[in-house]
């Protein structure tokens, strides 16, 4: 369970997030919705430790927790970026195994085996040796999900998972997210797409521009 209390964030003195509170229970899907510029991405960047916060506290399973300062070995938060940000110089398989082998020091054999399992589960079998430029948008996104999962995060975050895809792929993304929930994954989904949000949400947080 992740609790966020009174999260405040400014950019150059401009208030973006004003005392935001949220709680996400294990295995839940929390969607964060709101108009463009409301600070949804900023909130996600604070949760994933990419931005320093100006105030507030994070509690993970009741313990204080600083996303920006977690040690190398503790992969608490996984992130699927809006534009995926796969590493173009690595194959699909290497994208997935890079962090487990270099950060967690998992053996190459074990990392490969787990990566292939995860890739199979997201219908990416046969794509292991392709480079990112050879994949479609939907495939890139699924690789990004697998890459994040391979680090065994406690919470997986998505920023606008439908925005870079064809509209008819929305269903498929929803299915993947709901499938991961079945497997016990806690997820936070940022989106401005209300239909999509209501399709996957257990709980919805609305943010408005300050």
């Amino acid at each position, binding site marked *: 369970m992740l609790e966020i209390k009174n999260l405040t964030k400014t950019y150059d003195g401009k208030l973006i997030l004003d005392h935001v509170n949220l709680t996400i229970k294990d295995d839940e899907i929390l969607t964060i919705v709101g108009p463009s510029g409301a600070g949804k991405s900023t909130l996600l960047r604070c949760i*994933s*430790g*990419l931005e320093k916060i100006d105030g507030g506290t994070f509690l993970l399973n009741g313990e204080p927790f600083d996303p920006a300062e*977690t040690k*190398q*070995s*503790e*992969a608490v*938060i*996984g*992130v699927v*970026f809006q*534009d995926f*940000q*796969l*590493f*173009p*110089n*690595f194959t699909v398989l290497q994208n997935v195994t*890079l*962090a487990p082998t*270099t*950060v967690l020091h998992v053996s190459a054999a074990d990392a490969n085996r787990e990566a292939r399992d995860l890739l199979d589960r997201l219908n990416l079998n046969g794509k292991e040796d392709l*480079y*990112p*430029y050879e994949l479609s948008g939907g495939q890139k996104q699924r690789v990004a999900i697998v*890459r*994040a999962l391979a*680090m065994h995060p406690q919470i997986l975050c998505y920023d606008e998972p439908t925005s870079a895809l064809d509209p008819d792929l929305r269903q498929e993304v929803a299915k993947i997210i709901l499938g991961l929930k079945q497997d016990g994954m806690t997820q936070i989904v940022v989106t401005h797409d209300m239909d999509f949000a209501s399709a996957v949400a257990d709980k919805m947080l609305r943010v408005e521009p300050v």
Partner: protein
Amino acid sequence: MSYILQILPSLLSGAQMTLSIFFWTIIVAIPLGILVGLGQTSRFKPLTWLLNFYVWLMRGTPLLLQLIFVFYGLPLLGIVFPRYDAALIAFILNYAAYFAEIFRGGLQAIPVGQYESAKVLRLSYGQTLRKIIIPQVVKIVLPSIGNEVINLIKDSSLVYVIGLGDLLRAGNVATARDVTLVPLVLVAVMYLLLTAVCTGVLRLLERHYSNWR
């Protein structure tokens, strides 16, 4: 033919000087250029100002002037380098600036998102540079680095001005002494061979980096 065999030893010993300037400059100036390029993109402003000034100075003045300055100018300030060291210092400082400029451009072409996705995967900054950023930068900069490397082979002939015996000087001496064009033609052929080898190596490297985009 026997004339060629007769002048070949002196040309080859000149070529040795050319190659030694070439290799030492490459070996030191490329890593130095990477460091300066990284420094130029750092957030610590005084460092970027200092490095920008260095790059501006080196690229804004002739290499010939820099050679003369190091060998004939610095002794006036009591700093004396042997000829060969002076040549290496000037070449390394000059070429590192050009390489830095190329690497800076390459580094800035990498989206911030690459650093961020590496960070949320818990890779350290060093791991991120080594495994993700540098390979992408190398691919981007390879053609420009190739140009500079070819330039360096030819620029190395500038060391004649401080009295070092390189390939061009050896040919020039033989031509003046024996009143024939043959040495100069041989020198041209040798430069062509050197640049051809470099071009070939660069093509191989570019091919190595061509299976991803």
